[in-house]
């Protein structure tokens, strides 16, 4: 049977009422779970896993992939509406989306996030369907040196987040990376900065840092402002404005770049949606014709990062389906579901049960289209909350933050961290210290350390290993270029302005 015929059979299977219902249910659960701080997409996948025991493999995997795709996108909704990113991967969408919300563009921002995610996810599933096996082989050739290079590229994107003060950005980035080292070290098992406390040994979860810094800091900043004038336009009935084909065409560049970055990074086991989201945001800032808009509400930034996070889903499924290697927590749970149904993911899956494989492929493609509907419904529901008075909203945001922090490990000490980072977030705003680089450092710092030290152990501490492997060398050179380019660009601009002034 040809691949096209298999794909057609898969599409017919995916359209069966039960499978379609599973997709819609999964997407709604995923979007809601992703949007609620503290309930991560991974929690949601784990929660639906027991319900799949009695199902066939196809509807159960469609349910789980729908939760995966919806959960990855869901965090952008609360990020855009309330400055609370549901997951770390939604942080860049929060930077741009919330800034656009404050400017009164909430409806369009939600629409761009929904369409960007759906289209990025759709395209990556198409790539997954067409080129899975060769793609997986390339991704598998990556070693820890390449992983470090990719994470390094993500860290360098700090330069593009805040070009106002490089010094402040770097202080916050390194501070975040230092916070990421608290607890028992992954590689050597040594305690660091625990001050003898057992509670500190588990380290500080980055979700607590990002919820505290973003949400509580923002609530305090908004509610304690003296003589505040509220824009009446912000209290109007909120809508979700989905992108028209013309608007999609206008933002095709960021969409395609986000899709490319997301699929590529998603396919690298261990890299995942968070790295994809930061890297795509950084890349977009570099190629944008309006880089000054980044951080203040950029449609390009929002579209690119939204596209990248959902494109990483298709990418992450490639090594799982073709080689049986789960690259993230979510795909690991999905692999568990495969094994529960007596199916071993890997190359043999394509020859043993091609109909199921192609039903999953076509189901995932369909999921991304249905996500527009599920995303729209959920975004409408959450948008209604925008009409709630600011003081009531503020009180509930703080309670949600506490519940979110507690839910991570059922540990009351996390509540202290949350309160501390919340108050710290307010003072960072007050003293013009940028919050995003600190969050970036806490999220990517531990990954960078693990890959760096693993590479060093394997290479007898020879740092040249990063430059002798072509892929890592190329990524590191691009990262260094990205780091210095804004400085070089501003000097060139100054010189050009100086020359034109002299000529005048």
């Amino acid at each position, binding site marked *: 049977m040809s691949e096209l015929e298999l794909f057609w059979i898969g599409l017919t299977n995916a359209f069966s009422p039960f499978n379609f219902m599973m997709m819609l249910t999964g997407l709604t659960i995923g979007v809601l779970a992703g949007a609620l701080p503290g309930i991560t997409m991974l929690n949601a996948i784990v*929660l639906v896993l027991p319900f799949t025991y009695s199902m066939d493999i196809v509807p159960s995997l469609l349910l789980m992939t729908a939760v995966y795709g919806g959960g990855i996108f869901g965090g952008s909704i609360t990020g855009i509406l309330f400055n609370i990113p549901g997951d770390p991967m939604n942080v860049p969408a929060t930077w741009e989306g919330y800034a656009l919300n404050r400017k009164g563009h909430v409806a369009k921002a939600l629409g761009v996030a929904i369409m960007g995610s759906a289209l990025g996810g759709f395209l990556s599933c198409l790539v997954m369907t067409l080129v899975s096996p060769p793609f997986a082989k390339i991704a598998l050739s990556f070693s820890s040196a390449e992983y470090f290079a990719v994470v390094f590229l993500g860290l360098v994107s700090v330069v593009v987040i805040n070009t106002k003060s490089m010094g402040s950005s770097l202080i916050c980035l390194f*501070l975040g990376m230092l916070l990421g080292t608290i607890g028992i070290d992954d590689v*050597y098992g*040594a305690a660091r900065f625990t001050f003898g406390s057992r509670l500190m040994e588990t380290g500080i979860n980055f979700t607590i840092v990002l919820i505290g810094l973003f949400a*509580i800091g923002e609530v305090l900043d908004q509610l304690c402002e003296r003589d505040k004038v509220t824009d009446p336009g912000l209290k109007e009935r909120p809508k979700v404005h989905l992108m028209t084909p013309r608007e999609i065409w206008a933002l095709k560049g960021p969409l395609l770049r986000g899709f490319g970055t997301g699929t590529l990074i998603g396919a690298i086991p261990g890299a995942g949606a968070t790295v994809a989201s930061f890297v795509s945001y950084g890349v977009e800032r570099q190629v944008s014709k309006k880089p000054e808009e980044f951080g203040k509400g950029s449609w390009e930034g929002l579209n690119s990062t939204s596209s990248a996070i959902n494109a990483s889903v298709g990418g992450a499924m490639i090594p799982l389906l073709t080689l049986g290697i789960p690259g993230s927590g979510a795909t690991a749970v999905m692999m568990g579901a495969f094994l529960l149904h007596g199916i071993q993911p890997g190359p043999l899956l394509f020859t043993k049960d091609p109909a199921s494989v192609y039903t999953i492929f076509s189901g995932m493609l369909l999921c991304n289209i249905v996500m527009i509907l599920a995303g729209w419904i959920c975004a409408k529901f959450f948008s209604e909350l925008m009409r709630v008075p600011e003081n009531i909203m503020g*009180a*509930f945001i703080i309670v949600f933050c506490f519940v979110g922090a507690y839910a991570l490990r059922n540990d009351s000490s996390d509540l202290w961290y949350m*309160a501390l980072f919340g108050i710290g977030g307010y003072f960072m705003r007050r003293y*013009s210290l940028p919050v995003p680089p600190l969050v970036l450092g806490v999220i990517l710092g531990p990954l960078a350390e693990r890959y760096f030290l693993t590479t060093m152990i394997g290479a007898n501490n020879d740092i040249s290993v990063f430059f002798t492997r072509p892929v890592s060398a190329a990524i590191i050179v691009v990262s260094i270029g990205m780091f210095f380019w804004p400085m070089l660009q501003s000097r060139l601009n100054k010189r050009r302005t100086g020359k034109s002034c002299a000529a005048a």
Partner: protein
Amino acid sequence: MSSPSARAGAHPPWIKIMAGPIFFLAFGLIGYFYADGSIDPAPPGQLGAGFWPKMCIIGILMAAVLKAAELFRCIGKAEAEGGACKEMDTRKLVLMMLLIVVVVPAISFVGFPIATVLFIGSFLWLAGARKLWVLSLTSIIGTTFLIYIFVKVVYLPLPKGDFFFEDITLAIYRALFIM
């Protein structure tokens, strides 16, 4: 607190401008020596667990020097202050921060339901709500909704409190048909 316009007009003394970088330099130096003394030494031929945190601290020190250089170039200019700041209600801010800190041990001690009702009510009062029915209804209905979502739907074991507060929390759960 002086008005933003007044502050934008006057040039602050250099020590005030440089306070940030000086703080981070001092933090970095103390942190470096603490890391050096407290983290296990590296095994022979390896970088060890202390390598990465020390690199981060060196990064902070270098970034603080860079920030100082940026500010030095701005001395005498208005940008050195980081632009005009919003006027804040300091009393409200301090009380809200205090409430956020106080609710943390309260959640563990009196349990999530009671602590949340009290927190929402107090926070709303601080935020300007004065009508008793708004304060009581919002806090009670809101807390009930949260308990239903997180305890009943997501099975999250939220803190029930110590001593007799645990019995009160369990009674609330029973009254709400949660358990």
